């Protein structure tokens, strides 16, 4: 079983609420659910949708087919109709003027019932839920449970009204709907799986950061990153975390550096435009060896671009950002599971090597949701790296030259030590120097860290057979779609596998070199226009790929889209 529901309408019509309710019903009955959020950069109106894919086996990406459309506006029909599968159904409010009715269409009084039965058009969500689940012949009890969970906090009355509205539509639909949906879930058996988190990439990062004993976050709101900051702010009082909305990104990151300098693990979150404003401070972090973790939830650029859409187009920028030369680490989690793990690694790496660590997400990674195993935060281990021994040390040198380039940290406030940081080239003490030999020594100090970093980073993963005729090269959030494409193609008998990177910079190259040697064709699949990762690979290894697949319209690629590209190119 693998089917997709799309619920669409205007921003402000509660599309997310319907999406949440429907998702919850399926998550709670033990299905695997993947939700894609598609919305415009506006607060009300326009066309937004939630695409909910449900399956009895794990799903890792969005679909490009829809089995059930729940439309709150005409746009929501028009935009999705071409994707409707045979046997698919469209449910929409009777208020929508839409003349081309077909048997699979269900025009029904969502708003009217909400008002009449529930007393408020705000319950149109519940009505839509009732109608949808009736079409799917899903037991009503489950609808009731979902509504109870969702509205419990608002009191029994709210729950009751919502259930009543849903029931009314459920019954009405059961009675009236003449078509049959391709999906019939009347005999659903799965039990509740209490232990799955239903979560998006942003939230996974926030939890990972908090599990890593993050004690400071300063940020300036920017889609699609803002939720990470908001999630942490919402727990700040419970967990005692310093959080501050800064006046701009220049301030956000430099506050973070001050916080880190003073001893706290610090995090700043932003998107590409905000990261652009952080570039100078990135260099300050580097030369002062102040650990910092930066999250860039990428979106299509340049400049304001498409604020609520997705792209992987800041990789080379982040790998080279800021004047001068210094080590840095770039990690690009493939999904929320990896996001949590990446966050915890990021803070450890930053402290261990005293370098900036950057996490590259994107709007798809950030906003799309899936159910995954519950995180165990108590199991997260913390490595604060080299800390100077306690006690007075009048000779303490913040930038002591060591074999591996890492010097013991002390913090201002440590009794008996004076801690000196400077963004100028400095002596071991931290004070300014212009001496050429010391300049050389300090450059080499920074660069020495790279081989150690490389050893600590994870190698890429090969998905599918170790050796295949075609290897798809991927990184970050496109993993899911490509992974599914590989599986589907394997099922078709194609010899194809996937070489996927989470740890993208500095680049571990040995697996890569082996795979490049063995595969007949390497195809880079990226959600950008210029194949940035393939370019990075060539910069690092001289190895080129044979073919490029690029998507840059701001909408995440699907498995079918990837397959179509490969087929059209005659690759498979």
């Amino acid at each position, binding site marked *: 079983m693998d089917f997709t529901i799309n619920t669409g309408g205007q921003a402000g019509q509660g599309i997310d609420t319907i999406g949440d309710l429907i998702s919850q019903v399926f*998550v*709670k009955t033990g299905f695997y659910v993947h939700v894609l959020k598609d919305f415009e950069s506006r607060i009300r109106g326009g066309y937004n949708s939630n695409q909910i894919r449900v399956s009895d086996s794990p799903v890792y990406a969005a679909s490009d087919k829809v089995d059930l459309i729940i439309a709150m506006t005409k746009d929501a029909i028009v935009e999705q109709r071409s994707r409707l599968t045979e046997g698919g159904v469209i449910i929409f409010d009777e208020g929508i003027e839409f003349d081309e009715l077909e048997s699979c269409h269900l025009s029904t009084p969502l708003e009217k019932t909400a008002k009449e039965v529930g007393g408020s058009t705000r319950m149109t969500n519940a009505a839509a839920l009732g109608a949808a689940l009736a079409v799917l012949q899903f037991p009503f009890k489950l609808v009731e449970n979902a509504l109870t969970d969702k509205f419990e906090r608002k009191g029994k009355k709210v729950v009751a009204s919502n259930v009543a509205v849903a029931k009314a539509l459920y019954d009405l639909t059961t009675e009236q709907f003449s078509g049959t949906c391709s999906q019939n879930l009347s005999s659903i058996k799965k039990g*509740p799986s*209490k232990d*799955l*988190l*239903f*979560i998006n990439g942003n*939230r996974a990062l926030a*939890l990972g950061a*908090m*599990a890593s*004993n*993050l*004690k*400071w976050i*300063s940020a300036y709101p920017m889609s699609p990153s803002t939720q990470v900051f908001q999630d942490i702010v919402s*727990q700040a*009082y*419970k967990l*005692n*975390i*310093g*959080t*501050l909305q*800064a*006046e701009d990104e*220049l*301030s956000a990151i*430099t*506050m973070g*550096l*001050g*916080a880190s*300098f*003073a*001893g*706290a693990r610090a995090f700043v979150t932003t998107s590409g435009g905000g990261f652009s404003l952080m570039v*100078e*401070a990135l260099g*300050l972090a580097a030369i*002062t060896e102040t650990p910092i973790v930066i999250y860039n939830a990428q979106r299509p650029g340049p400049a304001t671009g498409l604020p609520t859409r997705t792209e992987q187009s800041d990789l080379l920028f982040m790998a080279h950002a800021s004047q001068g030369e210094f080590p840095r680490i770039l990690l690009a989690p493939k999904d929320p599971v990896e996001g949590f793990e990446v966050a915890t690694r990021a803070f450890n790496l930053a402290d261990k090597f005293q370098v900036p660590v950057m996490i590259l997400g994107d709007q798809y990674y950030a906003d799309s949701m899936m159910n995954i195993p*519950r*995180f*165990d*935060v108590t199991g*997260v281990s913390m490595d604060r790296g080299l800390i100077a021994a306690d006690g007075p040390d009048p000779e303490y040198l913040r930038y002591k030259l060591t074999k591996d380039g890492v010097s013991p940290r002390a*913090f*201002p*406030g440590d*009794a008996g030590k*004076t*801690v*000196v*940081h*400077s*963004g100028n080239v400095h002596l071991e003490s*931290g*004070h*300014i120097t212009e001496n050429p030999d010391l300049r050389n020594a300090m450059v080499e100090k920074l660069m020495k860290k790279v081989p150690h970093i490389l050893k600590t980073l994870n190698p890429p993963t090969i998905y599918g057979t170790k050796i295949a005729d075609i290897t798809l090269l991927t990184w970050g959030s496109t993993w899911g779609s490509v992974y599914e494409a590989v599986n589907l193609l394997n099922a078709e008998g194609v010899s194809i596998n996937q070489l996927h990177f989470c740890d993208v910079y500095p680049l571990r190259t040995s697996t890569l070199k082996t795979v490049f040697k063995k595969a007949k064709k390497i195809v880079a699949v990226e959600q950008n226009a210029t194949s940035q990762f393939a370019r990075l690979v060539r910069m690092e290894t001289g190895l080129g790929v044979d073919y490029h697949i690029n998507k840059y319209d701001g909408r995440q690629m699907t498995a079918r889209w990837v397959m179509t590209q490969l087929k059209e190119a005659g690759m498979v």
Partner: protein
Amino acid sequence: MITVEELEGKQAITWCTGCGNFGILAALKKAVIELGVPRHEILLVSGIGCSSKAPHYINLNMFHTLHGRAIPVATGAHLVNPDLKVIVNTGDGDGLGEGFSHYIHAARRNVNLAVFIHNNGVMGLTKGQFSPAAQRGYVSNTSPPPPGAPMWPINPVALAIAGGATYVARGFSGNQKDLVTLMVEAVQHRGFAVVDILQPCVTWNRKLTWKFYNERAYSLQEEGHDTTNKMLALEKSFEFGDRIPVGLFYRSELPDLASGLALPKDSRLRDHETDRALLQQVVNDLTL
């Protein structure tokens, strides 16, 4: 108590002979001694400029940051360890040009910092270009005559008051005694404290000289200025001609930023460990 010897800078001073920064450094040392807190509990944060080199010349914890960014760096450090007395050394180019936005936002947040503006009316370190605090008509390499600088100077005192700072003063490098007092008060004040310090740049600035200030500076306190009256303070802040007021313009007591954040009550963020069991509950609540 800290001794002068302990404060002896680890780095040879690179300022020009006669520079007003010497007076500020001397006052800073005296103020630090007078404060009577342990040496390791003081932190100096600076931007970039002649002025921003000051922390290298006094033996204390320090962070010499980027041009314009001293205040946010200081803010982060302060909130993570509120035990630190955090002092910002900034120039007029640094703090009122490149970093001006941070100045006002820190003021309205009432961040518990002491900001010392080494105000010389020029960008000294980049060779004397007119700075945001330069007088209209000031002639420099980037403001040739006519007409010299074609704009009015920024008024750090008026803007700090209008911005919400709770301790706003002006000092003069040539008046050590009062400058030390203002510095000590600024550090002790809980909230955003500014001391705009008149600092002759003997190399570039031929207008705002020692003589210029010696002839014009007068003490607000000696004239019995009421430092609780915001409007009066503002009025005084616009006086900059034959007479230039020096001293405390305005002071008020209001909650500082730290008091409004989720900082641990009994420890400092730098030492605090998140209760993982509580966090696990947050996670668990997310399961359906």
